[in-house]
């Protein structure tokens, strides 16, 4: 039987990790992820899991140990945030290139400097080209559900790629919400036993991970990573369908809210979608045809599906919780604009960079975005392709 509990995102993730019972968890504390692995370490101390918990001396070592443990044939998980992820950088790429199906929760936090511990998406957006599958969750429930599905996605033999599961620092990581926790046995059944592929400790079939790989074969190996990502598109949906069958909660590449007949659409990741939904309701009651699209999967980027979902909109506003300095706009905006171009979507698109370093984003600001979009729809003119919300200029 499932049960309902009041949990913050980190507690819910730790609970998922307990139920998954990974073989190895190397971790290092960093705000706001800390309580995830700290809670998990209590499960280790209480003998509730069989996990080898390695208290490493830095995140670089955490990911290095993850890769070693995964290559040796273990189911491996960890969690981090911001500068922790940045310190892992070298290893983050190597984890994907070695096809080690590690599952890492990334509690989104601004990547310094100056030092800031609050939420934005600059940490995981920086890692978007590293070769990891990236899932964004809106609330503790989605953090829990994504963490569990991530294991199946990563370990699928057609994929074998590491997965990052994200949710917003403090807002979700430390915000208490009602979370449906599934039965231990049901989660165990869902994730299934771990099957190691090409494990280092299989002495009858010796393998080498990460040797020199130059112009003769490097490009083929990169091409295989691309294949893994392509397969991931199918596997993500298969895993979501099985998850829905067993637990009743629906997941896909994205989630639409009052989107079908909307003329003005807003695209935003993670917890801000919750605020945006209430704004959509307000404006709908005033007769404005507005809707919301919340992407869940950022890598692999579901370009075609997003293009189809937004094809008939007059104007699409993207809200980016991170910037790409010197680029045309935030990462979500750029990817979506490219998808529109490639898939012939005529909708006008604008970008709003918001919430950097935990700057609060109010319903009023989101409403102002919709009013902007309405103005663009009316005049057919975009005054400003990128706007910074709630900033002193």
């Amino acid at each position, binding site marked *: 039987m499932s049960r309902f509990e009041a949990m913050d995102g980190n507690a819910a993730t730790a609970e998922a990790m307990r139920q998954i019972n990974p073989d190895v968890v190397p971790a290092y*504390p960093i705000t706001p992820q800390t309580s995830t692995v700290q809670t998990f*370490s209590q499960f280790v101390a209480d003998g509730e899991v069989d996990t080898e918990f390695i208290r490493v001396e830095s995140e670089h070592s955490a990911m290095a140990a993850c890769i070693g443990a995964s290559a040796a044939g273990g189911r491996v998980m960890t969690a981090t945030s911001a500068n922790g992820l940045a310190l892992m950088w070298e290893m983050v790429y190597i984890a994907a290139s070695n096809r080690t199906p590690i599952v890492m929760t990334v509690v989104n936090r601004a990547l310094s400097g100056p030092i800031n511990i609050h939420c934005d998406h600059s940490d995981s957006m920086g890692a978007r080209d590293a070769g990891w599958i990236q899932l964004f969750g809106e609330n503790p429930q989605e953090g829990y559900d994504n963490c569990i599905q991530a294991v199946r996605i990563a370990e699928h033999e057609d994929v074998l790629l590491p997965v990052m599961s994200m949710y917003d620092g403090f807002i979700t990581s430390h915000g208490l919400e009602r979370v449906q926790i599934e039965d231990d046995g049901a989660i165990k059944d869902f994730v299934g036993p771990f099957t190691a592929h090409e494990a280092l400790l299989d002495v009858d079939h010796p393998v080498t991970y990460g040797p020199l790989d130059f112009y003769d074969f490097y490009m083929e190996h990169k091409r295989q990573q691309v294949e893994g990502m392509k397969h991931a598109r199918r596997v993500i949906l298969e895993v979501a369908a099985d998850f829905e069958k067993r637990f009743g909660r629906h997941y896909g590449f994205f989630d639409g809210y009052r989107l079908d007949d909307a003329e003005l659409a807003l695209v935003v990741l993670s917890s801000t979608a919750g605020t945006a939904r209430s704004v959509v309701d307000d404006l709908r009651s005033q007769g404005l045809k507005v809707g919301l699209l919340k992407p869940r999967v950022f890598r692999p980027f579901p370009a075609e599906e997003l293009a189809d979902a937004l094809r008939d909109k007059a104007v699409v506003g993207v809200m980016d919780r991170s910037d790409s300095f010197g680029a045309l706009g935030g990462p979500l905006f750029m990817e979506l604009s490219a998808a529109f171009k490639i898939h012939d979507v005529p909708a006008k698109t604008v970008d709003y960079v918001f919430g950097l370093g935990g700057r609060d984003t109010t319903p009023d600001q989101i409403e102002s975005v919709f009013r902007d979009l309405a103005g663009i729809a009316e005049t057919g003119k975009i005054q400003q392709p990128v706007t910074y919300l709630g900033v002193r200029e």
Partner: protein
Amino acid sequence: MGRVLREKYTRQPTPFCPGCGHGIFLNAFLHAVDELGLDFDKTVFVSGIGCGAWVPSPHFQADTLHVTHGRAVAFATGVKTANPDLNVIVIGGDGDIATIGGNHLIHAARRNLPLKVFCLNNFLYGMTGGQVSATTPQGDITSTTRQGNPERPFDLVDLARGAGAPYVARFPVSQPRKLKRGIINALSFDQFAFMDVLSLCPTQYGRANRAKRGYEGPSMIWSMLEHQKGTVAPREKLDSENPEGKIPIGEWYAES
């Protein structure tokens, strides 16, 4: 801290928990600075992440460089090389300087640039919630070692000496006068100087280990101070063959 010192050297009250050993260090440090006449205008403080790193930044009325976790010594190396006339002082905790940044510490000691590094050792990560660090004594309770730390800690004096530091010291905050003397010696030393400052973290370490260590009485903080005093002894008094389980304190010059 006297009002005069406070007005002369600091910008704002400290953020430390009541009873935090870092406050005692701060006090001793500013007394040393004043006695020595260290010119804050010619001094740069470099610190990383953690409670210890907050001693200089943003509290001191001096230039401070507040950097990423573990990298203060590396940044300080850059500062000193670019402008050798500056006094370059690193203050941070054991998690910062000896755990995630341990590599920089040993290489700075080996390189022997005249940096001064003060490691406020409270045996765990205080700021992030009391997790195990590289100096947590074996068996001690932290929030990530609920059954006791299974691993052995670094002895930071041995580590720094082994890496070639020509001046290494260890003083406890429970003996602030000795600590101040040591700080003066470290600051006036003309080469690389490292000090393992035995600090106290009542909030994380104290509460987690209260039962185990027997921090008795209504004032856990006082009991921690008493306890710290009882666990250390001047290195000269300790027979190196048989240190009676006590932690040696004092100064180690390369020649000695």
